[in-house]
């Protein structure tokens, strides 16, 4: 009797969980379904979740037309380069914060944190003028250099916490054996920090891959577009071609979902060691 009541309770719990899951992923189901419909200029009435004549046409057109492959390449290059740069710089800085004593350490770190909290849009006008002065408008390097600047404080914050949680003994033993601090950092501390590095690499990469406002602001040249800008530019070019937009969205989403699913555990560990959205 009691056993049955427990079963009943579990069924209800799963039912609610499933309803919740549907609400969370419904827009994506709709996105996928619509991307397989030919010529979605207006919405079919009544709407159908499973299209009548599913077709890859939108994907093929999105991928081959509108220089989409170039945009994919631009995004890949920009996000990868910026992420590598940001992770190396912030790993070194975080190590300095965690292991060395120097004047003004906590003050500098507090400034890092405060600036981290200021939304990037707040400073977008002076950044725009700076990019103009440096000749970085309409250039992928204009995106990369600023993205590194945007990533650094969060990465440093997360990595400092990690380095501080590690025991010092091994590093000290190496120093006593005569190794210089750079060897200790690159051959011992950094390899040991792999899980934390993976976490910040993922967060930085996703942030850079998805970045929209800065790219919108400094990129006018259609040849320098990244994916978010490209997707946005499908809007209203010739009316909105939703089918094409959806296919483009899915292509842009694929790397994100792959990274998320294969490296899922790093997301949770990143969230729970620090503070990030």
């Amino acid at each position: 009797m009691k056993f049955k009541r427990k079963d009943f309770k579990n069924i209800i719990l799963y039912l609610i969980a499933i309803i919740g899951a549907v609400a969370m992923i419904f827009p994506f189901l709709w996105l996928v379904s619509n991307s397989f419909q030919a010529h979605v200029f207006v919405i079919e009435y009544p709407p159908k979740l499973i299209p009548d004549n599913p077709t890859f046409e939108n994907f093929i057109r999105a991928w081959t037309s509108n220089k989409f492959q170039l945009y994919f390449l631009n995004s890949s290059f920009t996000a990868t380069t910026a992420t590598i740069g940001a992770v190396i710089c912030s790993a070194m800085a975080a190590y300095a914060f965690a292991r060395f004593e120097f004047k003004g350490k906590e003050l500098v770190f507090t400034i890092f944190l405060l600036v981290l909290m200021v939304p990037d849009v707040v400073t977008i006008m002076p950044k725009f003028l700076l990019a103009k002065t440096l000749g970085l408008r309409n250039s992928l390097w204009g995106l990369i250099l600023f993205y590194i600047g945007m990533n650094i404080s969060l990465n440093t914050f997360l990595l400092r916490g990690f380095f501080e949680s590690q025991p010092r003994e091994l590093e000290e033993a190496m120093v006593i054996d005569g190794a210089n601090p750079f060897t200790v950092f690159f051959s011992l501390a950094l390899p040991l920090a792999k899980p934390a590095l993976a976490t910040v690499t993922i967060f930085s990469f996703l942030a850079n891959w998805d970045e929209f406002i800065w790219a919108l602001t400094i990129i006018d040249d259609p040849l320098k577009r990244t994916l978010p800008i490209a997707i946005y530019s499908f809007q209203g070019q010739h009316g909105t071609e939703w089918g094409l937009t959806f296919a483009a969205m899915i292509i842009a989403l694929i790397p994100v979902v792959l990274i998320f699913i294969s490296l899922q555990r790093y997301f949770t560990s990143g969230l729970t060691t620090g503070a990030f959205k």
Partner: protein
Amino acid sequence: MSIGFKAQRKILPFIFLLPALAFFIVFQVYPLLKGFQMSLYHWELLPDKVSQFIGLKNYINAFTDPIFLRASKNTLIYALVTVPGQMILAMLAAVLLNALPRGRVIFRVLYYIPVITSWVIVSLLIRYLFQSPEGLINYFLVNVFHITKNPILWMNKASTAFIPILILGIWKGIGWSMVIYLAALAGVPKELQEAASIDGASSWQNYWRITFPLISPTIVFTLVMLLIGGFNVFISVYLITGGGPMQQTEVMLSYAYHQAFDYLDFGYGAALSYTMGIIIIILSLLQIKLLRKPQEIYA
């Protein structure tokens, strides 16, 4: 010739810090200071014109600008609706998943998908779903549930145009808080709850008397983070309504952006941004107190 040990110890931290500090100063700190300077000027974009120093005039103008006041109100509404909305739903989801005997991971992944999707994609998707008159939401309201007779023209009125933005803000954020709450719930000692159950506490009492007080630091932490995120709202407004109709759905950042890049008034745009920035800084100072020892929060 090697440098002395003592000198080396002094230079060393600086060498490690140098690359990060260089990027940080050039691309973050300098713009922050420059922006403040701009906000005190009638800023001329053309190089041959001289920008005029006008003190706090841009800030004073902001407080008599009806659209800015409207934008501030909208930002506040956004924060006041989406923050509790996310927290309550995320907590319900966390407690629910925590009670599942198995399959927690798959649900956690599904609930987290909106968090990892870019704002551009979900904003455009929501706009598509709320299209008028023949969007999917209208289809459900009119043809399936018969709640209204005629399709709602969402984007024609400020009051309805803001609804998709609010829904998106809540929906996209649930997974983030939920994962944090799940971690906090996992840290609550099982013995305490079992002991309370043996003493006859219901699961409701168990939650409010034992679990809730133990995870309250985490709740405060998410509250401040979400408030900061809430004041940050920008892309969804920019892409869903564009601030329209008649600039009635502008939020602080979207209005500042429009001032700068559509009306080319950089000084005023900067002043508007900084007004926002000050609010965020105040919230952040509060946050740093919580962040200093993250292990305390998750102990």
